C-alpha cells in the first residue's frame, strides 16, 4: 500500500495491509459476509413496509454540502465541473416527487481531513443506506430507524452466527438494543454529559470525534442525539419553526465507543428558507440551480437518514477499525486501490 503523505501520523499497525492480504484475511471475509447480511436484511425490512429502492446517482453539478471539513471531489463532465456524491440528500428530496418512501444503497466519497485517518471511523469512500419519507416528522424516522436496526441485528444474529463467533463478538452485547427503546437526548444534554466527563465540548458545534467516542462508551445500547444547533450542519437539516437556532435533526450513536452510525432529520424544503440557510452556511445559491428550481415549484416536506454501512458492520462485527469492513479501504490522505 502506498502511503503518500501522512508520514508518521498513522501508526503502521492501524493501516490496512496490502490488497491480497486484506482480501484473503478471515477477518475481512467474515466482516464482508456480515455486511452482506446487513444489506439483505435492510432491503427486506424496508421493502416489507412499502419502500422503493432506487439506484443512486454518482455524479451531479452539486452534492451534499453539509459535511464537516471534508472536500468534495470534482469530475470534468463535458467541461462542466461536476461532483462525486458526498451523499445523495438532494436527490433523495427530489425523488419524493415520484414516490413517498424511497431508499438507496449509495456510495459516497468525501476527502476527509487528514486528522480523521486515525479515528477508526472514517473512510474516504463508503456506503450509506439512505432513506427518505415524504411528510414524515423526526419522531417517525427515529421509530423507523430503531425498527430497522433491530430487524438487521436479529437477522445478523440468526444468519451470521459463525462469523460473529469467529470474530469474538458476543451476541449478548445486542440484548439491550433488542429489548429497550433507544434513549433520545438533546445536543445540549449531550454537551452537559461530556462536560461532566471533563471533556470541553462546544455547545455551538457538532460533538467532536473524541467526545463522540467518550459519550458512546457510557452506554450499552444505541441512542439518539437530537436538536443540534444550527451552524453545526448544512442547509438541508431543517430548523425548528418554534425554536430558532435548533435543528430538527439527529445522530444515532452506537454504544461501547463505536460512535456515530447515522445522521438524519427533517429537511429544509421551502425555497426562501433554503436560500437563507445556504447563505448561513456560506454557500452560493447559484450553484444549486436545479435543486432550487424544484424547490421554487415545491419540494415535499420530508425526513430521513443516511446509515453508514461500514460503520454499522464494524459495530455489529465488533471490529477495531472501519477499514476492516471494506474490501478496498481508502483512509484519508493515503493513496490506495
Amino acid at each position, binding site marked *: 500500500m502506498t502511503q503518500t503523505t501522512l508520514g508518521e501520523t498513522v501508526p503502521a499497525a492501524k493501516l490496512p495491509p496490502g490488497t491480497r492480504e486484506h482480501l484473503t484475511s478471515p477477518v475481512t471475509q467474515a466482516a464482508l459476509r456480515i455486511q452482506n447480511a446487513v444489506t439483505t436484511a435492510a432491503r427486506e425490512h424496508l421493502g416489507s413496509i412499502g419502500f422503493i429502492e432506487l439506484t443512486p446517482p454518482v455524479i451531479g453539478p452539486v452534492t451534499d454540502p453539509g459535511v*464537516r*471539513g471534508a472536500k468534495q471531489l470534482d469530475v470534468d463532465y463535458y467541461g462542466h465541473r461536476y461532483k462525486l456524491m458526498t451523499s445523495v440528500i438532494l436527490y433523495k428530496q427530489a425523488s419524493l416527487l415520484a414516490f413517498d418512501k424511497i431508499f438507496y444503497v449509495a456510495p459516497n466519497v468525501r476527502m476527509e481531513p487528514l*486528522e480523521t485517518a486515525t479515528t477508526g471511523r472514517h473512510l474516504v469512500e463508503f456506503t450509506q443506506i439512505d432513506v427518505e419519507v415524504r411528510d414524515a416528522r423526526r419522531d417517525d424516522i427515529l421509530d423507523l430507524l430503531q425498527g430497522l436496526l433491530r430487524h438487521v441485528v436479529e437477522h445478523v444474529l440468526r444468519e451470521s452466527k459463525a462469523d460473529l463467533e469467529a470474530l469474538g463478538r458476543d451476541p449478548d452485547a445486542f440484548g439491550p438494543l433488542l429489548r429497550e427503546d433507544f434513549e433520545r437526548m438533546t445536543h445540549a444534554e449531550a454537551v452537559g454529559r461530556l462536560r461532566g466527563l471533563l471533556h470541553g465540548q462546544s455547545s455551538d458545534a457538532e460533538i467532536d470525534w473524541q467526545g463522540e467516542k467518550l459519550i458512546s462508551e457510557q452506554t450499552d445500547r444505541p441512542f439518539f442525539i437530537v436538536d443540534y444547533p444550527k*451552524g*453545526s450542519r448544512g442547509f438541508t437539516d431543517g430548523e425548528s419553526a418554534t425554536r430558532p437556532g435548533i435543528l430538527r435533526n439527529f445522530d444515532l450513536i452506537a454504544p461501547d465507543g463505536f460512535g456515530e452510525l447515522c445522521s438524519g432529520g427533517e429537511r429544509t424544503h421551502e425555497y426562501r428558507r433554503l436560500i437563507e440557510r445556504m*447563505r448561513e452556511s456560506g454557500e452560493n445559491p447559484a450553484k444549486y440551480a436545479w435543486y432550487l428550481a424544484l424547490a421554487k415549484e415545491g419540494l415535499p416536506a420530508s425526513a430521513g437518514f443516511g446509515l453508514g454501512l461500514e460503520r454499522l458492520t464494524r459495530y455489529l462485527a465488533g471490529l477495531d477499525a472501519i477499514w476492516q469492513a471494506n474490501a478496498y479501504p481508502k483512509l484519508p490522505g493515503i493513496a490506495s486501490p
Partner: protein
Amino acid sequence: MTAVRAPRLPEGAIRARAREGVAAIFPAVGEYGHALFGAAPATGPVPDELDRTRIVPPVFVPGRLERMFELGREPLYGDVDLRCRIGGFAAPLPVFLCAFGSTQAATGSGLGVAAAEQAGRLGIPMVIGENIVPMHGYGREDEATAPKDGMLERIRTYAAAAPAGLGGVVVQQSTEDADAEVWNLVYSDPVATRLLEEGRLAFELKVGQGAKPGLGGMTVLSRECAEAVSDLYSVDEAFGRGAARVLRSSSPGTFTEEILRRQIHLMRNNYPRARTWVKLHPGRDVAQAAELAWSAGADAVTVDGAEGGTGWAPSVFLDQVGLPLAECLRRIGAHDAALLASGRIWEGGRALKCLALGATAAGLGRAALLAVDEDGAEGLVRLVRCLELELRLLLSALGRYRIGELAPDDLWLPEGGPSQSPNASPSPSPNQAFEEAWR
C-alpha cells in the same frame, strides 16, 4: 521591480525603506551636523484623521519607573516588548500581512510568494486573499501550469520560512471560492498539516473590504481570461465593447446578523483546529458587526478602513464610500477581543495610533506589495524593521513598554477634524470621543 504603483501612498518613502532599511526612518545621515530639521508641512496624499492625529508623550512617565524597577537601570527603546498575540497566533510585533487577492499586482507577478517568504521569515501572520483558487488554481493538481503565486506555493513558502511557533497563515474564501471549497482544500492538504498541528492556520471570512465597501472583489481581465471564468463571475464590458479588457466582479455576498453568526459557527464546527478570522468593511454598523463576530466565536476581527485596499475599485468608492479607519476604531471602542486594523498603514506612527485606539495589530497591504516589488528578497523585511524600530521609539517615548499599555490618551487630534461637520449636531471632540470609547 515590476510596475506596481500606489499613487495614494507615499510610495517613494516606502520604497526607500524597502531598499535602505532602518536608516531610512531618519533624515539622510550625511545631513547630520549641517541641516536643521523641523516639522514639515504635510505633502503628498491628502492627510486623513489618523495622519493629523499626533502622538503625545507625557512629561511624567510612571510606566518608565515601573520598567526601571524590573531592569534595575534606565529603560531604553530596546527594552520595549513588542511581542503579542494576533488572532490566536504568536507574533514578534503587532503587524500582519493583509490579504492580496487575485489582483494582478499580487498574483502571477511572483510578489505573492516573495511576500510570503519574507512574512514567514519575520514570523508575522499572513492573510491569503480570496478568489485565487477559482482564478488561478490551487497548484496541486496541475503543477506544471499553476501560477508560481498560487495558493499552495504561498502556504508552502511561508511555512518553510517561518520560525517555530511564530506567525500563521490565514486563508480567505469568497462566495465564489466556496464553489472551489478553498477551506476544505487547505484543511485536508498535507502542506498545511504542520501549520494545523501547531495551531498556525486560520480561515478568514471576508465580509467586505475598505477600498470598496458593499462591493465584491473586482479585477480587470483580458477577454480570454474572462471567458474562462464567466460561469462563476459577472463580467462587464466596462471599458467599451470590443475593448481588450473587461471588468470581472464577485458578488458582495448577502449578510444579515443571522447569516454572519451562523457562518462563523459553521467555520468553527467544520474546522475545529483552525482559527476563525472575520474581515469587515468600514460600514456604518461596523461596531455591531464586530461585536457579533466576536460573540459568535471569531478569534479576530479585521477592520479595513476606507483608506485600505490593494484591489481595483471605482473612484467613487475610493473617494467617497466607507468610514475612515479612525472612525471605525472609535465606533468599536473598548473591547477585550482581537481587533486588527488596516488601511494605508506603512510606518510606525499610524500603526501606533491604531493600537492606541484599541487595535491589537496593524496590517500592511499595499505598502508590503511595494516593498516586495522594490526588493523581492529583503524589501518587506526592511520595511517591517523600520516600523518595528519606530514602534520601539514611540512606545518608549510614551513611557509604555508593552503594546497593551497604549491608550487613547497617548494621542491628540487637533480640533476641527472631519467629524466636526458644521451642519452636524454638537458632538464631542474626537479626543473626548476616543476617551469615552475607552471608559
